[in-house]
């Protein structure tokens, strides 16, 4: 677009370049006056046309579109006032400067000149210097006006195109980045787009085993770049969920994709999570979003706030990304809240931020969980008043109540046909320091195991059992970490740091894993044996206190245990055997 940067210099250049073609119209019934003015103007390089009265002036204007008009007032046929009115009407949006020529200095008359559309007036006798100064000033103004008008028209056309393009793009975008099953009855959410596209991304899809996967992402920036980044995230999320991928697998796939395609300044803060079909287990990975909140429906207070300690997606390569997931057990009616920083950064008229404290206070009123979502939104809206929104606002509530769901939410028949798979097999694996650091045996084993016909639907459960048992063996067995650490304030981070230190300094140590799989016509059984080189623990005592969630192996093992037919510690506590059993679904 030329001339988009308007400055006085460029306007002057335009005038200079066009000077030879500037045209003036002189309107006067007095031939001598016409001659004088014509002479002055042509001396200064203007092309001059003339008219003897208002009527002729209008005709000349229509025929030649002059750049400036000098207009006498008192003339036969049609006077200067009326001619000016008509010419200005004919000119419409075009700016034609009209200078009145008058012998009088009567203020009322001068005021009338301006009222009918005159831009300036000249009193007789004429001074060449003043006339030329006024004409030039007005033609400069008229050029400026023309340039601005042309630019405005260009911008209008451009804007219109942009809107059409955005509308089409939005249509394509919403087909790819669809909301999945966000209409599931136990979900409540608000997603308010700041522009046509949204920096926040909220996706939900049912897993093959009837659980629910959710991804909340917040891209750096807004609009088009954020939307483009959202496309592969959404694609991968839905595809992987359909294939029964676990949370950590989804995280790794999306991260590697984004790291490859996004420039370094763009990334996605995200939370990827899974709810088991019965909503008793909540598995999450958290990278860069605000704290995830878990509200106890029974106790009417927050029972966990989970802070992110991972990189957002797309920042580092997969080998540096930690994929440790948090696993929580939920009770019926517990609520999980995910939100983007638009909530805590919502501003009021005094430009104060809503902030985390105000948000947390919403949970401290001891209210029933039923109206909590609405009351949070109401509190934020009240706080904001009429203040304009400066970021995307996204809040999601998941109610851990499977009774709200119909049983038809997932379709077993959609499970993909697999190659015939050996029904009775076993495998052993011995892992040492390098494997602990460089591999993720839980993912590999889950992937391998769930290739078995019918076991795919149990993928999340098997992942949790393997994950808990392996991590226990590594953390508490091989590395000798005490899980009590985690319950202290800031203990979780201390724990993770200590874990890293001990892992780096580790000499010797092993974990052996053996899997044994049996299947008959109706049911299958997977026996997981894990042994570690650690000194073990008093597992008799552990079993007794397992439900109190205070024991060494902690909550994780009781979770795993609840999923298995049997889970027992053997030897001096450094061996564990878990038996997972499932019925084959009627094919």
């Amino acid at each position, binding site marked *: 677009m030329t001339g988009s940067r308007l400055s006085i210099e460029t306007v002057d250049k335009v005038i200079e370049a066009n000077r030879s073609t500037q045209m003036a119209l002189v309107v006067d019934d007095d031939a001598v006056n016409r001659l004088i003015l014509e002479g002055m103007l042509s001396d200064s390089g203007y092309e001059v046309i003339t008219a003897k009265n208002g009527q002729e002036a209008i005709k000349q204007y229509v025929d030649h579109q002059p750049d400036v008009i000098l207009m006498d007032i008192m003339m036969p046929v049609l006077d200067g006032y009326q001619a000016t009115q008509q010419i200005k009407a004919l000119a419409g949006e075009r700016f034609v400067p009209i200078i009145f020529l008058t012998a009088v200095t009567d203020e009322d008359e001068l005021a009338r000149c301006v009222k009918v559309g005159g831009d300036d007036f000249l009193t007789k006798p004429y001074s060449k210097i003043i006339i030329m100064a006024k004409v030039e000033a007005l033609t400069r103004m008229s050029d400026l006006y023309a340039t601005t008008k042309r630019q405005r028209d260009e911008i209008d056309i451009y804007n219109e195109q942009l809107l059409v393009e955005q509308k089409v793009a939005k249509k394509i975008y919403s087909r790819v980045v669809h909301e999945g099953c966000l209409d599931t009855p136990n979900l409540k959410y608000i997603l308010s787009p700041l522009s046509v596209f949204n920096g926040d991304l909220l996706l939900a899809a049912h897993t093959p085993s009837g659980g629910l996967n959710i991804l909340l992402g917040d891209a*750096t920036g807004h609009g088009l770049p954020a939307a483009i980044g959202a496309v592969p995230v959404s694609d991968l999320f839905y595809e992987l969920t359909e294939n029964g991928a676990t949370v950590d697998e989804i995280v790794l796939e999306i991260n590697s994709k984004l790291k490859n395609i996004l420039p*370094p300044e763009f*990334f996605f803060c995200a939370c990827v999570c899974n709810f088991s079909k019965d909503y008793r287990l909540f598995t999450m990975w958290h990278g860069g979003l*605000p704290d995830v909140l878990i509200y106890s429906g029974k106790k009417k207070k927050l029972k966990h706030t989970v802070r992110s300690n991972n*990189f*957002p997606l797309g920042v580092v390569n997969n080998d540096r990304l930690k994929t440790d997931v948090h696993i929580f057990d939920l009770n019926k009616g517990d609520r999980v809240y995910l939100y983007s920083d638009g909530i805590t950064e919502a501003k009021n008229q005094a430009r104060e931020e809503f902030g985390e404290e105000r948000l947390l206070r919403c949970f401290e009123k001891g209210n029933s969980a039923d109206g909590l979502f609405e009351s949070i939104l109401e509190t934020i809206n009240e706080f904001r008043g009429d203040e304009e929104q400066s970021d995307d606002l996204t809040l999601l509530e998941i109610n851990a109540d499977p009774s709200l769901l119909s049983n038809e939410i997932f379709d077993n028949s959609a499970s993909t046909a697999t190659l015939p798979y050996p029904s009775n097999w076993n495998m052993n694996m011995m892992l040492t320091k390098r494997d602990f650091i460089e591999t993720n045996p839980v993912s590999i084993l889950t992937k391998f195991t769930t290739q078995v016909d019918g076991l795919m639907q149990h993928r999340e459960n098997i992942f949790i059992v393997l994950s808990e048992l392996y991590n226990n063996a590594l953390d508490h067995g091989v590395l000798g970490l005490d899980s009590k650490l985690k319950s202290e304030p800031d203990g979780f981070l201390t724990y993770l740091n200590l874990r890293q230190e001990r892992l780096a300094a580790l000499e010797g140590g092993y974990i052996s894993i053996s899997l044994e799989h049996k299947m008959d016509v109706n049911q299958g059984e997977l026996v997981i044996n894990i042994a570690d080189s650690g000194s073990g623990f008093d597992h008799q005592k552990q079993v007794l206190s397992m439900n109190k969630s205070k024991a060494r192996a902690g909550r994780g093992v009781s979770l795993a245990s609840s999923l298995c037919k049997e889970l027992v510690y053997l030897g001096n506590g450094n061996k564990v055997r878990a038996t997972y059993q499932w019925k084959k679904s009627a094919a």
Partner: protein
Amino acid sequence: MAITITKSDDGRTVTIKLPSEFDFRSHKDFRESHRGADPSAQYILDFAATEHIDSSALGMLLVMREGLGNDDAKVKIINCRSNIKKLLEMASFDNLFEVA
């Protein structure tokens, strides 16, 4: 407030003082502050005056780090307010930058 840059006498340490709002509007100035910078020098990002940052600030930090050789970059972040420190930790940026 603009971004100010000071170099130590031997030129080995570059201190970049950030504005009170370190966000997308600082993009150009911040990029200028370390354009063509010597990757072997020590960089200090001083957040003393900074009250707020947004996610594009985190993006800018990543771009700077990449320009200085990623893992070889020597960038230290100092004088963070607690809200900013928390934000950096939430995104695990304390693993990419030395946050003092």
